[in-house]
């Protein structure tokens, strides 16, 4: 694995008509890294990928591949390969011819092509399928052909545009693991575009969360989940309770927030704020606790609540409680005890204490 950056995007803008599909994005993708761009459709992740591939050229800003600007280099001159969402296998060629195509274009000697095609098919566990036509293969097999066709060229960077989107859930999970293992083995930088947060969290070394053309946060899966830097990221990754309010008091690393209706909360700061700022307190449902007894050592955030709804989903019980007036708050309890005793679970209408430590609540801006 080489040091340094495989891809650098410096203040990149891509404008389509009146819309900035990619809006001043700066990100650095390290060599050998599994990097994901995650966001809802229309967030600019696919456009960013297409600019790295060379299918689109940036309106402004610079893209560097291994330190060399490639802004307007055509795709066929970049040592970057793509796995397309639709796989884009050539239907009139056999699997082996598909995989050989890139090497043929680079005028690799015949004998080498045969050997490398065999190796590539072997790597994706498709040895012996070389003579088949793509349409004779299942979706998962076609996907692996697309991978082999890209990887056989030994690209500096492999781009994957929602490649698992068309597969069913079980196959998708298998492919997630297989992709990650493949990436570790070949040591090539993977840039993976997805709207599926679980997929991104499972596979990535680092993730860029994107929205409306901007990269909101770039970090490891843990950083993105545990320390989101804004409301959108906290909301998009996993689930969270949001309580809107204004900063009424600040102390080292934490803030006191009032919702204007009698509720006062304390939470951890992730960025500098001033008194009066409008903010959201974000609490993940699994990071809040619900108890019948009042905690002996009352934490900063403790409220008396009424259970509104209970969903038993096997591994967890998900409880909606009424916090203050007209506000529902979601708490997840892991079912660590094996019991069918009705009393072991929360019931609708029960009273209880909802609480969480200060560090489990994050104070976020919109």
């Amino acid at each position, binding site marked *: 694995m080489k040091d340094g950056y495989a891809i650098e995007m410096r203040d990149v803008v891509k404008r389509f008509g009146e819309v900035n599909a990619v809006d001043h994005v700066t990100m650095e993708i390290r060599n050998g890294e599994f990097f994901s761009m995650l966001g809802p459709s229309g967030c600019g992740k696919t456009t960013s990928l297409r600019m790295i591939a060379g299918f689109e050229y940036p309106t402004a800003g610079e893209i560097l591949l291994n330190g060399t600007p490639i802004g307007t280099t055509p795709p066929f001159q970049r040592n970057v*390969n793509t796995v397309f969402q639709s796989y884009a296998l050539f239907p009139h060629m056999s699997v082996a011819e598909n995989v050989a195509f890139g090497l043929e274009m680079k005028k690799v000697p015949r004998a080498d092509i045969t050997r490398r095609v065999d190796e590539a098919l072997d790597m994706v566990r498709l040895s012996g399928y070389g003579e088949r036509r793509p349409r004779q293969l299942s979706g998962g097999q076609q996907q692996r052909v697309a991978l082999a066709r890209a990887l056989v060229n030994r690209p500096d960077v492999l781009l994957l545009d929602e490649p698992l989107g068309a597969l069913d859930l079980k196959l998708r999970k298998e492919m997630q693991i297989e992709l990650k293992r493949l990436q570790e083995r070949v040591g090539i930088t993977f840039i993976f575009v997805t709207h599926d947060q679980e997929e991104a969290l499972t596979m990535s070394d680092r993730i860029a969360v994107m929205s409306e053309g901007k990269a909101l946060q770039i970090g490891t899966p843990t950083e993105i989940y545990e320390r989101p830097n804004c409301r959108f990221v906290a909301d998009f990754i996993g689930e969270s309770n949001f309580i809107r309010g204004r900063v009424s008091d600040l102390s080292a690393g934490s803030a006191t927030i009032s919702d204007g209706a009698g509720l006062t909360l304390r939470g951890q700061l992730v960025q500098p704020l001033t008194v009066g700022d409008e903010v959201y307190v974000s609490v993940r449902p699994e990071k809040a606790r619900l108890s019948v007894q009042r905690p002996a050592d009352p934490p900063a955030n403790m409220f008396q609540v009424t259970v509104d709804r209970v969903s038993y989903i096997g591994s967890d019980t998900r409880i909606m409680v009424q916090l203050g007036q007209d506000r529902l708050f979601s708490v997840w309890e892991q079912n660590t005890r094996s019991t069918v005793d009705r009393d072991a679970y929360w019931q609708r209408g029960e009273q209880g204490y909802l609480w969480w430590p200060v560090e489990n609540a994050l104070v976020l801006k919109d």
Partner: protein
Amino acid sequence: MTTDTAPISEARQQALSKAINRSERGRLFALLFPGLFWLSVFFAFPLFVILLYSFLTPGPTGNVIWKFTLGNYATLFTKDLYVNAYVRSLWIGVMTTVVCLLIGYPLALYIVQRSPRWRNVLLFLVLIPFWTNFLVRTYAWMIILANNGVINSLLQSIGMPRLTLLNTTGAVLVGLIYGELPFMVLPIYASIDRFDFTLLEAASDLGADRRRAFLRIMLPLTMPGVAAGSVLVFIPTVGQFVVSDLLGGAKVDMLGNLLQRLFTRSNPPNWPLGSAMALIFMLVLTIAIIFYFRTTTEEDR
């Protein structure tokens, strides 16, 4: 238990399937009859007459003498007039097809890449000439190409010498290409419309420049349209006699002109020779088309 019932049920089944077969056959025949009748009366029978005539001897008054001969075929393969007509017809057919292809493919590609609204407008424009009778449109070309026609008047007005345009092979080609172009554009359009342009991005991604991406990916995958268009243009072109008559004068004889002359205009008419000519013509076309389909669509099968 099964040994007991099997023979009975088998016998029954056979009787049943026979009954079904009988009624099925009746239905099948009833359904096929109109088509079969049509084909035999208007295709098989005339073809048979032509086949028969081609081996008979022409009489002095345009009649047919019932005497077997291979002379008609011998004449076709030895007399320059006929050999040249075959060569010229095929050559004009190939030229027309190639030029239609070279204009039609980029045109179809251009239309596919427009927005849906513009696409419909452009397709409509391609079809508009069909609203006017083909003969009228060919006469229009006569007016354009004539010695004191539109082009020559223009040339004269800017002080250039007149050109002989009408009654040349070139004029025939222009007329044919103009008339046949839509038949090339439409099948190719349909083919390109079904083409997944992501494949071109994939080719480019794998190191193919535009030329190679086109030759290796797009052309093979749109070949069915190219093949269909070529056949639709080639066959009617080779048998043309109106365009060559009007725009070529009597100077550009194609097969169709000779056929027409042998059957109706020459004195006396020579049906046996005409029949032989028509048969050879059919044979050559069939072989050419089979060969063409073999070479163009093999990869896709």
